[in-house]
């Protein structure tokens, strides 16, 4: 009787909240430690920087996805948009570095904008709208590459490739860019009115509107952002590869969604963090790396493992949000 009732349930709620937010980080740490003990080659700097650069593109895409999911939506188009961004960048690189950046961002941003307008103003279901633009962006990509037959190469002497291949302290530029974007996005989410609006809309759209949040405008902004980030990731990837590869990005949207959810963001919206998403992406990266280390396991095992992780996370999340709701 000395402790007031809500203090204890509050503590439990804090613990549950903490696990929900940082569970992915804990699992990530555990996997890294285990992998380093089992595989000698895992704990090398080269291997780590390899994981980092490979994950950096997914991080950028997943940041946008985090915003979209928190505000109660979904964006299935990011994989296609990523590929389209890459091809456009490679194509435009013949005119110089600046066009190679501006053209893909403009087109991909426009696709995101279109998604947003259809979803927010015409109140169409995000699932359907972004499924349509997944197909649409793919189609656009095929039409500018002669049905995927021609691959545009970035001119050898172009400084554009430097953006993707350059390194600092042994880490690729995209890694730094991804980290900077993640930090910025985390700040925007937690400490800006835009971020607060996103949480409010995902938590309860009607209540948010009644509290004066400009719901439609915020949603349009969110989907535009997601398109822009997917396009940026595609652009960076093209710079790194030195070409616009048309078959990339298939299923990338599912990786992004998986990473976001593993990172503790609620699939129904209203709660989530960028740091969780970061852990989620890295966890997927580590799993893939470990499976590569094992070597004789097929890549299908990677899918199975990621799938298992996702299932466990969703179960734990559901359980946690139930304990939180009990009171």
């Amino acid at each position, binding site marked *: *009787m000395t*402790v*007031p*009732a*809500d203090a*204890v*349930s*509050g503590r439990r*709620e804090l613990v549950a909240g903490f696990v929900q937010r940082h569970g992915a980080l804990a699992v990530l740490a555990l996997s890294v430690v285990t992998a380093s003990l089992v595989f000698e080659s895992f704990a090398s700097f080269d291997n780590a920087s390899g994981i980092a650069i490979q994950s950096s593109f997914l991080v950028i895409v997943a940041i946008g996805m985090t915003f979209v999911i928190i505000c109660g939506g979904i964006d299935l188009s990011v994989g296609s948009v990523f590929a389209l961004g890459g091809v456009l960048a490679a194509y435009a690189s013949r005119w110089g570095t600046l066009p190679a950046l501006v053209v893909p961002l403009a087109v991909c941003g426009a696709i995101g904008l279109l998604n947003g307008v259809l979803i927010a103003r015409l109140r169409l279901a995000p699932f359907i709208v972004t499924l349509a633009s997944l197909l649409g962006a793919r189609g656009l990509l095929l039409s500018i590459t002669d049905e995927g037959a021609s691959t545009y190469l970035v001119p050898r002497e172009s400084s554009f490739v430097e953006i993707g291949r350059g390194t600092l302290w042994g880490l690729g530029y995209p890694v730094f860019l991804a980290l900077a974007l993640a930090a910025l996005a985390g*700040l925007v989410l*937690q*400490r*800006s*009115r835009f971020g*607060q*609006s996103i*949480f*409010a809309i995902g*938590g*309860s759209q*009607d*209540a*948010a*509107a*009644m*509290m*004066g*949040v*400009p719901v439609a405008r915020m949603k349009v902004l969110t989907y535009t952002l997601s398109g822009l980030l997917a396009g940026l990731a595609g652009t960076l990837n093209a710079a790194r590869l030195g070409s616009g590869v048309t078959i990339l990005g298939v299923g990338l949207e599912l990786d992004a969604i998986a990473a976001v959810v593993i990172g503790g963001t*609620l699939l129904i919206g*209203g*709660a989530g963090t960028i740091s969780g998403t970061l852990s989620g992406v890295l966890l997927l990266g580590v799993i893939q790396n470990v499976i590569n280390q094992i070597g004789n396991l097929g890549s299908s095992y990677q899918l199975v493992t990621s799938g298992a992780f996702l299932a466990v996370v969703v179960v734990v999340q559901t359980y946690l949000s139930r304990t*939180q*709701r*009990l*009171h």
Partner: protein
Amino acid sequence: MDSVPLLSVRGVCKRFPGVLALQDVSLDLPAGQVHALVGENGAGKSTLIKVLTGVHRADEGEIAYDGRPVDFHQPKQAQQAGISTIYQEVNLIPLMSVARNLFLGREPRRFGLIDLPRMNREASETLARYGVHVDVRKPLRSLGLGAQQMVALARAVAIDAKLLIMDEPTSSLEPREVETLFGVVRELSQRHISILYVSHRLDELYRLCDEVTVLRDGRVVHTGPLAAIDKLTLISKMLGRDLGGDGVTKFTHDRRAALPGPPQLRAEGMDKRNLLHDISFEVRRGEVVGLGGLLGSGRSETAKAIVGALPVDRGSVWVGGRRLARLSTAAAIKAGMAMLPEDRKAEGIIADLSVRENIVLAAMPSLHRAGLVSRRRQDQIVDVFMKRLRIKASSPQQRVGELSGGNQQKVLLARWLCLNPRVLLLDEPTRGIDVGAKAEVQALIDELARAGLAVVLISSDLEELVEGADRVVLLKAGAVVGELAGDQVDEHAVMGMLAHG
């Protein structure tokens, strides 16, 4: 007085598919006036408020605010113009922290970023003035309904408004919180802020309001100073008929004698860490037992624990002399218990289903024969309860989310009543229900008890508790502190025991 009222509504009409929710409604609200808006469930009060604040658009009519005609498309525009609104259901974001809810849209900023420490500090200070002492970083949903309502009030007042609209702000408040709210309203009206106030608790209106407008079926049937009209006349204007009797509650005043035999419901040693402490009581057939206590006394938790909706550390429940093997909602329903939960939005009503589906939902398992559910049988049941409780809907097929707040409550009540339970637990059964229907619900509880049902009644309306219950079990901080039976049951005795027990 000012010649131009702050708000002036002329000839407003609003149609929904199948209903004319507002017809030719006119209303004037001078600065500094506290104006009551009353009417039966479904009369159009909330709709009028939503039209005024840009949630809905009027089909016809003009609204002038601050001397200029206005046509708000979004709640945000109304807010910017200085109209602050507390809508009927608490409309905040459950997952966001208390402080973030309080400040959403007007967060204090530093270098362009939200200043979290300052926001949390100011939120704590503000809420403390409203008697809410909580960790403002916790999610809003961890607060009780009353505290959430106080957060909504604090938020509405903090937006520097000229007009404050409140749609049933006191329906989930404790008496102490109601006093706080009244204090706020009086202070605002002294500062020349106008208030439009909706409530089904008529006593409150007489304490607070200057003028009253009565809506019936979407039309204004009366408007004038409140002091010039007595309560019974007001009620008859709202209902369009006389209520009959002496007004207040509709319970028969003579206490029922419990039927002989073993107790129908027995709860023993219910224990839940920090919430419930060794709670035991029993209810006989034909008896209404009230659970009394203040906010946080464990009333609702006790009821939830009994029907298995709140896991307990220890405790057992007997129904009709048989002990439940385990406490779960399924087992409770099977044993013949039904419970009307307190928070209808979170724990009961399914807004997207029809009135009909919502009513027969829980009764489904008992209605089927060889896996098939008779549509005719369903229709009969639905029909009976819609008439009996006077549920106002365009048809049984209407989406429950489109019903007025009070009518949603009635649908929920019907759901549990049509189960034909042996034990009925009612948590705030008349919240948000208009005077006419309230009398109806109370008469129904009475009748059910006479027919041999065991009823547990929870109500923060002391009058309702005292007049409805044959016996009152008093709880304080999760433990039983006393019991009153027979002639001992009256408001003073209850208050006394809660204060000293």
